Structure formats: structure tokens, C-alpha cells
């Protein structure tokens, strides 16, 4: 009852993106794919840029990924991230061929290289919201 209120920026979830966030809450990675040509796309959007179909479905992702790049965030810019600064964020290539960006936990930035394997983990930050993060695989 006395838990401090969550003070970080919240995602503005739309009907288009809700399945992705619902999936995270259930600790599942779900990604949008074209119903017609099956191209996976992220972040979710209305039209397939390959075949222009507006029909899409949601597929399960493995959460396996490799590092495309990273940043070590020293200056927090938003007060709520001050307590964990510096923290690493990674841009990753998911096995399904799309990218994500999320924090990399329990890693030493000086040991990172492009292409290193990482695995998605789930961080329940409020009863309604789970955010993605990664760990070295």
C-alpha cells in the first residue's frame, strides 16, 4: 500500500500496439507480422511496407537477439533514471529480423562487442506494465 508511485515515463499504448504490451505483461514477446506476405514488422504500424496489406497477425518471438549497438547513459535527462545511472541501453537485432531497444542488465560496457548474443527478460514495473530488458546470453 505504501509502495512509491511509479515515476518513469509510461508508454502511450494504442489499440494498434496493445497486443505487444499485453504480451510483455504475460512474459511473452509477440511481434506484428503481415497476414499476407508474413514480413515481421516493429514497431507496430498499419501497413506492410513490402506488400501494402493492412491485415496483420501476432507471432511469438524467441527473445534471442544480437547486439547492433549500445549507449551508456550517464546523464539521466529524466529525474527518475538518476538512481540507476549510469545504465546501458542496447539496440538489438531480434532473431525474427526486427530491432528493439532496451536496457542491458548485469553487464560491463567495456566487454561489449557488436554481434554479442543477448536474451530478452521481462521486468514487471507496475501491476499493469512490464518492460523489456536484455541480459547477455
Amino acid at each position: 500500500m505504501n509502495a512509491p508511485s511509479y515515476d518513469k515515463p509510461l508508454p502511450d499504448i494504442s489499440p494498434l500496439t496493445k497486443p505487444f504490451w499485453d504480451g510483455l505483461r504475460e512474459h511473452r514477446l509477440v511481434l506484428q507480422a503481415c497476414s499476407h506476405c508474413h514480413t515481421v514488422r516493429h514497431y507496430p504500424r498499419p501497413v506492410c511496407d513490402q506488400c501494402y496489406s493492412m491485415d496483420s497477425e501476432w507471432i511469438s518471438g524467441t527473445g534471442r537477439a544480437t547486439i547492433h549497438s549500445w549507449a551508456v547513459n550517464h546523464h539521466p535527462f529524466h529525474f527518475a533514471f538518476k538512481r540507476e545511472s549510469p545504465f546501458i541501453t542496447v539496440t538489438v537485432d531480434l532473431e525474427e529480423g526486427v530491432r528493439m531497444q532496451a536496457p542491458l542488465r548485469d553487464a560491463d560496457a567495456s566487454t561489449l562487442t557488436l554481434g554479442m548474443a543477448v536474451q530478452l527478460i521481462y521486468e514487471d514495473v507496475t501491476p499493469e506494465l512490464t518492460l523489456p530488458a536484455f541480459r547477455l546470453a
Partner: protein
Amino acid sequence: MSMRDKACVTGIGETRYTRETTRSQAELTFEAALAAIADAGLDPKDIDGVVPYVMGGVIAEDFVTNFGLPDLRYSALTPMGGASSVAALQNAALAVAGGLANHVLITLGRGALSTGRITDRIGQMPQFRLVGEFEMPMGTVAPAQFYAPMARRHMELYGTTSEQLGEIAVTFRKHAALHDNAMMQKPMTLADHQASRMIADPLRLYDCCLESAGAAAVVISRADIARDLRQPPVYIGGVAEGHPDSPSTITQRPDICRIGLAKAAPKAFAMAGVTHKDIDVAEIYDCFTYIVLCQLEDMGFCAKGEGGAFVQGGRIALGGELPVNTHGGLLSQAHIAGMNHIVELTRQLRGHAGARQVANAEVGLVTGYGDLGDGSIAILHK
């Protein structure tokens, strides 16, 4: 129809640049606009087109109200963040070349800290909606953080170093010392750059641009009228804008080390009928040091991956092979979102740059870089 030499920069104006202000963005903008119109030798009522900055606190109608414009017949916006100013040159050049207007005023005013921190401002911009939903909740909330992975990947792939980025910051600081309207007058050494604190590794404090208050404006006139105005006309030889593939966020771009300018630059060079060797001076959008290096590559001044070596050894300093940001840029003059770059290039090509003057400058280029990889470029000449 080619746009080559159909439009000219005929007037330039700037306010003093400061860290904070008690004046509104509108007041700053009108001061710079009136200065630019007077510089051209025009009366405000001669202005018949306006392209204001989207986030500049004024709309086209405000110029009708404040200047009593009798016949504003062209107005537009170019919402491309830091690429807006140079994209507005393209827009204004089209308007005068197409006979829709004679004299188009382009303005950009900023209130810096007086109008909220950068993280608050970008949160309101529609182009950052996906960043807001998918990246900000995990801590990536500001431009230094958006762009750090671009610089990191460049370093990992090509061996680019922080010292090479520092060379850019140190060079622009030296140039700023020659400008009495540059905010940063304190000298900077490479050791100072290396000792500056990390913001978003690999970007240090001195890799990041200033936050500034002030305004700049230019007047773009139809070429045949421009020749009779007060200042020597500076011709828009070539101009183009370019957008990277999948530009919703940096994360989603197929190649994060290449930006929209790579598409625009060949078009601008072809339109102007010049080559890289013809460029005497370059004013390059410099929100971060790395972005300068990336643009030099994407414009073809060197191959991808060679930007680090290119900026070393004084090549981009006054007196070097390609003087860059002779006014100090966003890093050391002021962050007027690149409108100050257009003003400086015009001064250089008029031969009015004083202690900063590049000898015999006849052809120069100015670039813009915005948001999530948008690029714009104009090649101007005497």
C-alpha cells in the same frame, strides 16, 4: 525545369545569442526578421511569402499582424527538426522560382531553457511518437541518447575515436572565438574535451551542442529581382532534402550509420553543377560532433568509415582544405537550429565574415540534420 540559380539569399538577420532570455520567441523572431529585411534593402511590406519554424512560437499570420503585410500569398512549414532551416530554403526557392512569391522570409526563434528543456519539447513532436512509446519508458529520452548508438556502432565498425570527435569540437571553438556573437569564447583543448564528463557514452559533454535563446532569419528573393537589392546576391545553386529508410526511430533504421543526407547530397551537387573540390567552405549541422563526421561521409567528402581521419590534421579548420562551421556552429556559437549556419555561409560568400573570412570563398554548402535522420543541403555561390 531546374531550380539552379532561380533564387537568392538577399537578406540575413540575427539577434544576440544568449543562454536564457526573458523575451518571447516571437519578439526574438521579429527582431531577426526585421534585421534580415533591412539588410536586403526591402520594406517589411515587400514580403509576400513566409516559412516560419514549426516550433518557433510564430505562425505566418503573425507576420501579417505585426508587419502589416498587405498581400501574404505564400506560406508553408518544413517540419524536419534541425533539417527544417535548409529544407525551408528549398521550399522558398520553389515558391519564388514558380512565381508564387517575390520575397520569402524564413525565420527561426528559440527560447532555450526559457521555453522548457529539450526532453519536454521533443515529447510534444509527432515525429517522436514511437520513440515516446517504445524507447522513452526504458530511459532513452533525449537526443544525445538517441544518437549515441549511431556513434558507438561507427566506432566499433571503423575504429573511430573520441579524440577524433574532439577534434571537431576544438576546431569549432577556435572559430567561435573569432565571432563576437558566439556564446562560447573560452578556449577548448583536446584534453579539455577528453576530460569533459560522459553524457551518453560515447558522447561527452563537449560533443553536445548548446541550448540557446535567439533568432535568425533570411530573405529569399527571385534571382532577377535580387540583383537590384542592397547586398550582393548569393545564389541557391542546388538544394535537396532526403529521408532515411524506416525513419520512425533511429533504432529501426536499416543502416544507423547513414542518414538522409546521403540521398540528398548527390541531387544538390548535380543541380548546382559543382563537385566536392569546388566547395570553399561548409556550414554543417552539428547538434553532436559525430553528426558532423557522419555527414562529411554521407556527402562523399570521404568514404564511409574515413570521417575520423578526415577531420584530423586541421583539414576542417580555417586555413584548411575544407573549413567547416566558421561561426562556431551549434557546438560553440549558438543552437539556432541551423539558421545561423545559413546566415554564416551567406556572410562568407558576400566576403563579409571579417576575421573568419575564408579567402576567395565563391561556393559553399550548408546542411541540416533533423530528428531521426532527416537531411537537407543547399549549395550556395556568389
